[in-house]
C-alpha cells in the first residue's frame, strides 16, 4: 500500500470515529429525553404549572419552584453579567502583563473548576450570615453569581482576544481612547462570543442544586416569592425532593418538572441564538 492510500484510510477512519463520538452523545441524551417524556409528558398541564406543592401527588404543582428559578435566573444575570464582563474587559484590555495579573489569571481559570458546594459554603458565610441575607433569593443569586463569574470572565476574554489587532489599531489611529475603542469597536465585534458564554454560564446556574441547599433554600415552599428578600426554592431542588419520595405519583411529577426545566433551558438558548444573530448582523463583517 502506498502512502496516499494509508493517508486516505486514516482520514476515513477518523471521520467514522468522529461520527461515532457525536452519535454516542446524541443517543444517550435522546434515550434520557424519551424516557423522561414517556413518564412525564401526560402530567404537564395548566394545573401542574400553577399549583403550589402538596402531599397529594395529583394536586402538587411547580409554581413556586418555577417562579423561584426565574427569579434566580434574572437576579443572577443582573449581578453576574456586568461584573463578569467588566472583569473580563479589564483583564484583557487594560491590565498590564505583570506577575500579579498572571497569578490572578491562573486563579480565575482554576476557580471555574471548584466544586459548586464549596461556593455554597462561601455564600452561606458571606451572604447568608455576614450580610444577613439568610436563605433569600438575593443570597442564592449572589452565590450562583460567584459560581458562574469565572465562566463569564474566561468567555469574555476569549471573545475579546479573537478581535483582530488591526481593528484596535484603526480605532486608536483615529484618535479614539481605549474606552471608545472597547465600547464602539471591540465589544460589538465580540458580542456573539460573550453572549454565548453568558448563556452557557446562566444555563449552568439554573441547573445547580447543591449551593442553594447549603445556603438554605427550602424544599417545601407553599408560597410564590415576590421580592428578592423572600425565601425560595428552585426547580432542581423540587425535582430532587420529589424523586426522593416513595410514591409513584411524585416520580411522575419529577419527570414532568424535568421536562419543564429543560424547556426553560432550551428557551434561554433559543433567545441567545436569536440575540447573537441579530447583533452579528449589525456588525457588518
Amino acid at each position, binding site marked *: 500500500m502506498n502512502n496516499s492510500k494509508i493517508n486516505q484510510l486514516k482520514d476515513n477512519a477518523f471521520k467514522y470515529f468522529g461520527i461515532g463520538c457525536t452519535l454516542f452523545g446524541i443517543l444517550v441524551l435522546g434515550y434520557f429525553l424519551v424516557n423522561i417524556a414517556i413518564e412525564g409528558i401526560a402530567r404537564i398541564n395548566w394545573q401542574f404549572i400553577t399549583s403550589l406543592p402538596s402531599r397529594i401527588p395529583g394536586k402538587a404543582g411547580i409554581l413556586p419552584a418555577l417562579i423561584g428559578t426565574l427569579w434566580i435566573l434574572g437576579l443572577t444575570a443582573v449581578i453576574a453579567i456586568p461584573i463578569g464582563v467588566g472583569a473580563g474587559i479589564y483583564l484583557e484590555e487594560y491590565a498590564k502583563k505583570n506577575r500579579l495579573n498572571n497569578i490572578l489569571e491562573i486563579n480565575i481559570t482554576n476557580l471555574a473548576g471548584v466544586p459548586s458546594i464549596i461556593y455554597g459554603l462561601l455564600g452561606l458565610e458571606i451572604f447568608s450570615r455576614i450580610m444577613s441575607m439568610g436563605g433569600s433569593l438575593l443570597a442564592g443569586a449572589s452565590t450562583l453569581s460567584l459560581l458562574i463569574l469565572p465562566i463569564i470572565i474566561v468567555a469574555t476574554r476569549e471573545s475579546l482576544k479573537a478581535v*483582530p489587532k*488591526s*481593528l484596535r489599531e*484603526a480605532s486608536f489611529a*483615529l*484618535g479614539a481612547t481605549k474606552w471608545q475603542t472597547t465600547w464602539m469597536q471591540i465589544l460589538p465585534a465580540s458580542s456573539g462570543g460573550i453572549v454565548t458564554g453568558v448563556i452557557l454560564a446562566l444555563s449552568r446556574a439554573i441547573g445547580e442544586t447543591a449551593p442553594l441547599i447549603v445556603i438554605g433554600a427550602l424544599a417545601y415552599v407553599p408560597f410564590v416569592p415576590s421580592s428578592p428578600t423572600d425565601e425560595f426554592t428552585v426547580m432542581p431542588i423540587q425535582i430532587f425532593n420529589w424523586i426522593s419520595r416513595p410514591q409513584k405519583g411524585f416520580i411522575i411529577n419529577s419527570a414532568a418538572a424535568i421536562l419543564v426545566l429543560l424547556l426553560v433551558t432550551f428557551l434561554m438558548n433559543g433567545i441567545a441564538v436569536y440575540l447573537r444573530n441579530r447583533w452579528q448582523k449589525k456588525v*457588518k463583517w
Partner: protein
Amino acid sequence: MYKLRSENVNVHYGDFHAIKDVSLDVEKNSVTAFIGPSGCGKSTFLRLYNRMNDYIEGFKKTGKIYFDDVEIYDSKIHIEGLRKKIGMVFQKPNPFPKSIYENVVYGLRIQGMKNKKMLDEVVENSLKRVALWDEVKDDLKKSAFALSGGQQQRLCIARTLAVEPSVLLMDEPTSALDPISTAKLEELIYELKQNFTIIIVTHNMQQAARISDKTAFFYLGELVELNDTKEIFTNPKKERTQNYITGRFG
C-alpha cells in the same frame, strides 16, 4: 520648513535595539518614502510619529521627536489629540465592520459630533477626495466589507482625512492591492501632497521613485541615507544604498 523633526532617536524592544540613533527631518507638504529590507526599522520609525508603538510590550524610546515644534513624547501631550492630527493608513485595509458611512464618520463621532448635516457633508467631501464617491454614493449604508481591496484602502484613507490631519503616515498601503488599485492610490498620494505631509513606508522601490520627493534608506535600525529621491536612485552616496537599490541584497 520642517513638519516633523527627530533627534537621536533610539528604540528598544526589551533587549532588541530596533532604531539606532536616527535623526531625520520631514518637510511640510512633501512625500517622504522610507525604504529598506524587512526588519530594518522603517515601520517602527513610522509608528513613532503617532505613538502606536506605545502598546508594544517592552517598548522604550530615547531622543526627541517634534511635530510642529511640539515634543510628541512629552508627558503632557494628549495622545488622542495627536492622532487626530497625524493620521495613519495601514498595510492591510482595515475598515470597521460597519457601513461605509459609519466608517468615514467614526473619527468625528468619537469627538462627539452629532450634527447629521455636517456629518453627511464630511462623508461626501472625504469620499470625493479619495475618488470613491462616485463608486459608492448610492451604497453608503452597505457594509465596508462589500468593497474591493483597493476601494477599502481608499475608504480607510477617507476615514483618516475626515478628522482633518496634517500628516499622513502610510505603512505599505499598496502591498495588499492589485496593480490597478496601486496606480490609483499612487495618483491619490500625489494629489494629497498639496495639503498633507506624507510619509510612506514601501517595499517597492519603483513606487518610492515614482511618488516621493525624499527617500530615507534604513538598514538594521540605522538611517543609512536620506536625500532627494532622484539623488538616492541615481547617485547614492553610500555603498549600502547603492547595493540595495540595485537589488544586490534585501
